[in-house]
């Protein structure tokens, strides 16, 4: 086990606490860079979605994980980013300009949402953000001169510095990866700065933060604006990846998916956003795989345990019928969310930390290390 001996404050806020980080993240980055030459085009496409979801996840972590302000309206920010890109594109604005413009506009709107949110906490804030998202969805459907309403908008192929970048090319993947890495590094830097420290202070106790001299209102609005702006950037990439956007893509369902990303990944570390994004994007191909192959596998198992070919065949067909039921995916989603909340509240990254600590401390690991405290007095209402 490695002991970090910290002798001053600089040690505490280092980007890479020790050389192990540089090596492991370097290897990870190298693997991601050679991915287009190894993986199939379908997996590459999924990887691009992982990048986009992870960017949104990081944005949501800044707001929900580190500032403690829940939001179920991030699909709306994504939509604003995507539509800004699509609209500016019709005026032949170059990519870097509309990319930045989308982030800027979304950031400004995020700050505007942040102001009313200053007075709201807990459930009121969640519902206010849901309302905001529903209003944006309706505006997108009705403001036909700009958004083309429910017909949706076609997004032209991305052209960067005179080179066209098709949405399934490796270059587009590298672009998304670059944005993701920049977002993560930027967020890490933000979180070690006074601003980030103020965010965390607000999350832990608003009253305590205020009495320490943190301007709570200012930092909450900042947090909303930064989170929205990052989501706006992701929106531009999202629009290009899909090449067609319409209002019904940016529903509450998508906002919930983003929350699931950070919930499953873990809300206390940026690792969570990436792990959660991988989980949520990869669950689709995984379920499809199960749907196609599971009936055969189960029938095979039944046959090895002595079932007659006729029984095995009927088992196979009934499992296949079950697997192709409409809505099975939603049910599995629901079960996964509930199971994570009940049994793995710290998410995938929390599980990784537990496994790591188990081996570091072996045989002295205690389960209680990660146990959360339960509070039965009416905390939220009187806080």
């Amino acid at each position, binding site marked *: 086990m490695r002991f970090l001996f910290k002798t001053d404050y600089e040690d505490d806020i280092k980007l890479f606490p020790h050389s192990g980080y540089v090596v492991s993240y370097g290897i990870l980055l190298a693997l991601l860079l050679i991915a287009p030459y190894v993986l199939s085009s379908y997996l590459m496409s999924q990887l691009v979605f992982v990048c986009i979801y992870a960017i949104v996840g990081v944005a949501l972590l800044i707001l929900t994980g580190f500032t403690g302000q829940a939001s179920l309206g991030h699909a709306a920010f994504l939509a604003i980013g995507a539509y800004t890109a699509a609209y500016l594109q019709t005026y032949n604005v170059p990519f870097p300009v509309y990319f930045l413009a989308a982030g800027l506009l979304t950031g400004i709107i995020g700050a505007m949402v942040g102001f009313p949110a200053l007075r709201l906490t807990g459930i009121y804030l969640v519902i206010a953000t849901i309302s905001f998202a529903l209003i944006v969805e309706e505006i997108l459907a009705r403001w036909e001169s700009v958004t083309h309403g429910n017909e949706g908008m076609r997004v032209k192929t991305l052209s960067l510095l005179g080179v066209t970048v098709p949405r399934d090319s490796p270059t587009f993947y590298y672009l998304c990866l670059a944005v993701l890495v920049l977002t993560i590094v930027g967020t890490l830097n933000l979180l070690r700065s006074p601003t980030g420290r103020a965010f965390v202070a607000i999350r832990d106790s608003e009253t305590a933060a205020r009495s320490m001299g943190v301007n709570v209102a200012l930092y909450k609005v900042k947090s909303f604006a930064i989170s929205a702006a990052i989501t706006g950037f992701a929106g531009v990439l999202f629009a290009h990846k899909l090449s067609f956007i319409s209002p019904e893509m940016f529903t509450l369902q998508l906002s919930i998916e983003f929350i699931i990303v950070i919930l499953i990944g873990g809300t206390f570390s940026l690792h969570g956003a990436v792990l959660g994004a991988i989980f949520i994007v990869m669950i689709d191909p995984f379920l499809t795989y199960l749907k196609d192959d599971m009936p055969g596998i189960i029938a095979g198992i039944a046959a090895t345990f002595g079932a007659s070919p006729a029984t095995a065949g009927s088992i196979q067909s009934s499992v296949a019928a079950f697997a192709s039921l409409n809505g099975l995916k939603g049910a599995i989603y*629901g079960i996964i969310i509930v199971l994570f909340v009940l049994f793995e509240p710290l998410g995938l990254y929390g599980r990784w930390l537990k496994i790591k600590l188990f081996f570091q401390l072996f045989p002295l690991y205690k389960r209680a290390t990660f146990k959360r405290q339960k509070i039965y007095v*009416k*905390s939220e209402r009187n806080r």
Partner: protein
Amino acid sequence: MLDFVQQLVSGVALGCVYGLIALGFVLVYKATEVVNFAQGDLMMLGGFFAFTFIGMMGLNYWIGFAGAVAAMALFGMVAERVVVRPILGYPQFSIIMATIGLGYFLRSVAGMIWGTDDLKIETPFSQGVLRMGSLVLAYDKLSVIAATMILCTLLWLFFNKTTLGTAMRASSENMLAAYYMGIPVKRVVSVVWAISAAVATCAGVLLAPITFIHSNVGLVLGLKAFPAAVLGGFGSIPGAVVGGVLIGVIESMAGFYLPEGWKDVAPYVVLLTVLLLKPEGLFGLHVRKKV
């Protein structure tokens, strides 16, 4: 003028349904500080149960209604035991996510069992209208209004006049203190979930002749019931119903007098405005913060 009254009545009827769902939110929130995002889905499930009893098994409407309410009350207790009890006392965020997950699950499973078509229940109020002069009021809408009033009175009496109701109010104030005073808090919470599922079922069955039942009805109406609960302050039983009626009336007026598209947005615009001016809702308690 006649149009106005007509819109007002249908708005109030719709609002009563929102109010009934919001009532479920408020009951659970008051007792356990859990915001149940699956409340609308409980309503949907209640409607499907009633459809099974009445439409498929051919039972009498009232027997089917009572059967659905009983079945859903039991279901509410099971859901509380399995999903909510293990995470009581944890931050609100995780509980909200758990109920969202529960909602997803119920919607999909209901879709798998009962299909995705719109289902209709034959009720004694399905046909027929009440004529007062030139004013025409449909019985199905009036039945919703009447049932809401009856349910509200019953709940009010229950909470204020019975021992169990007092125990519920006590555990909603402070679970730990109530436990020390000898109130079986766990059982109380389970009963609260049973009541809120039963109320949701009433909403679902009453709504069946008006909007039909399909697996997404809970999501759609649940999202409308949220503004209702928030307008009412999320902690007050009359507030929930008043909030629901307000939202219903706003929606139906906006649909009639404002250009197309406003109908769905108007409740949320009103909600955001109210939250801006009065962050605790119209009837909410203002609590001072403690460090």
